[in-house]
């Protein structure tokens, strides 16, 4: 069964190919619940091309009986058809791409069907029921929170091997955390973070002033849509939403052990989350200090690229450069006139911010090569991502 591969897992980002022969040759069965949405479609696409997953089932109440290609055109020609969500068959790994609140209500059913559950919603990302009371609408299955491992592999890789409940990190939180993490890890901001010891614990204790502005594409709103999502209303916008109190702040606080002033704008792109964070370190910092921090954190990471004022057209991170990939681009610039460090990070929200990150985490949990099924480098040029 899937959980049996845990002893084969690597915990070293430097050695993403250091998997055992058993794991490298292994194929496990997998299904996707909530497969008709954007993240679900990306999961289907990734799993269909993955060397170690055998895709069994895709559920959708709305589209039951139709082929998965009917909603996800890249998968046209695939014989797999949607089934009712209540008709789960036994598999090794179950990926849940359902709206927030669904997985916590069905988690026992999910574990009846699978050894490993990878949840893409926010249902198991936070450590405590109290956090769900504060940031969401409470929690129906708090006993599972301690069991879940947060899937931002760059920060929590060591706890993912063998994990049987994986909570894939949120898109905006992923972009923000990856941008700011090296500053905390190297003491440029704050002190020890929850991330460094992997426990994700601790009250926000930092007194840093951090302002985060994230520009997001329309796919973050899901495939359902609403009045604000019609083309006539959505096209051309630079629209503030959740100007304060965005729920992803909870993940950021949990993993960086600090609070942030966080605002999102919906902009005219389909894929992508681009986070710009403004920070003011207490002590003077040099460009060399910043490069040391970012290089040491990320130079061995398979899915983080640095882009910070180099040459060419794409000098800083932007969603176009990572569209369709599981890559996060991270960069920064120092303003010597006032000591501000402005940090940029860009991801494809449906990939590194959702389905790609979930598959990356599953690869680690099951002992597969970290990059298995995820080594697509992207396209250039592309239009609006």
């Amino acid at each position: 069964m899937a959980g049996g591969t845990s002893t084969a897992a690597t915990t070293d980002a430097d050695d993403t190919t250091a998997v055992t022969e058993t794991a490298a040759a292994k194929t496990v069965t997998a299904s996707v619940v909530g497969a008709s949405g954007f993240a679900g479609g990306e999961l289907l696409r990734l799993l269909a091309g993955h060397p170690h997953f055998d895709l069994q089932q895709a559920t959708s109440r709305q589209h039951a009986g139709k082929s998965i290609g009917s909603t996800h055109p890249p998968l046209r020609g695939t014989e797999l058809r949607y089934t009712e969500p209540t008709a789960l068959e036994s598999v090794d790994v179950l990926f849940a791409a359902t709206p927030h609140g669904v997985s916590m209500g069905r988690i026992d059913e999910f574990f009846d069907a699978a050894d490993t559950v990878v949840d893409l919603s926010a249902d198991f990302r936070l450590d405590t029921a109290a956090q769900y009371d504060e940031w969401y609408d409470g929690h129906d299955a708090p006993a599972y929170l301690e069991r879940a491992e947060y899937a931002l592999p760059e920060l929590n890789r060591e706890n993912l091997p063998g994990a049987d409940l994986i909570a894939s990190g949120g898109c905006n939180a992923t972009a923000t955390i990856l941008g700011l993490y090296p500053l905390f890890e190297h003491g440029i901001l704050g002190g020890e973070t929850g991330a460094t010891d992997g426990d994700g614990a601790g009250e926000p204790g930092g007194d840093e002033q951090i302002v985060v502005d994230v520009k997001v594409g329309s796919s973050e709103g899901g495939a359902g849509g609403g009045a604000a999502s019609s083309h006539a209303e959505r096209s051309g916008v630079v629209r503030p939403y959740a100007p304060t109190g965005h729920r992803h702040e909870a993940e950021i606080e949990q993993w960086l052990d600090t609070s942030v002033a966080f605002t999102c704008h919906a902009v005219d792109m389909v894929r992508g989350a681009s986070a710009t964070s403004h920070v003011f370190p207490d002590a003077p910092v040099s460009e060399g200090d910043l490069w040391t921090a970012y290089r040491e954190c990320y130079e061995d990471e398979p899915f983080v690229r640095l882009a910070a004022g180099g040459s060419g057209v794409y000098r800083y991170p932007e969603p176009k450069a990572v569209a369709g990939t599981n890559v996060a681009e991270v960069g920064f610039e120092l303003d010597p006139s006032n000591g501000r460090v402005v940090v940029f990070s860009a991801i494809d929200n449906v990939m590194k911010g959702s389905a790609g990150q979930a598959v990356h985490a599953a690869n680690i949990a099951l002992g597969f090569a970290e990059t298995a099924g995820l080594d697509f480098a992207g396209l250039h040029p592309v239009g609006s991502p």
Partner: protein
Amino acid sequence: MTTCTACGADVSLHDDLEAGEIVDCTTCGVELEVIETAPPVLDRAPELEEDWGE
């Protein structure tokens, strides 16, 4: 092999390096001018400034 003056990463250089040549760092992407060849000395290459509405 030498070191990028911007980010500190190792920069691999080819054998027939010439002074004045421009190379780029594969880590940070900055363009570097070869000032001396033996031993190699690099410095950040001058850039054309772009005015994005400033």
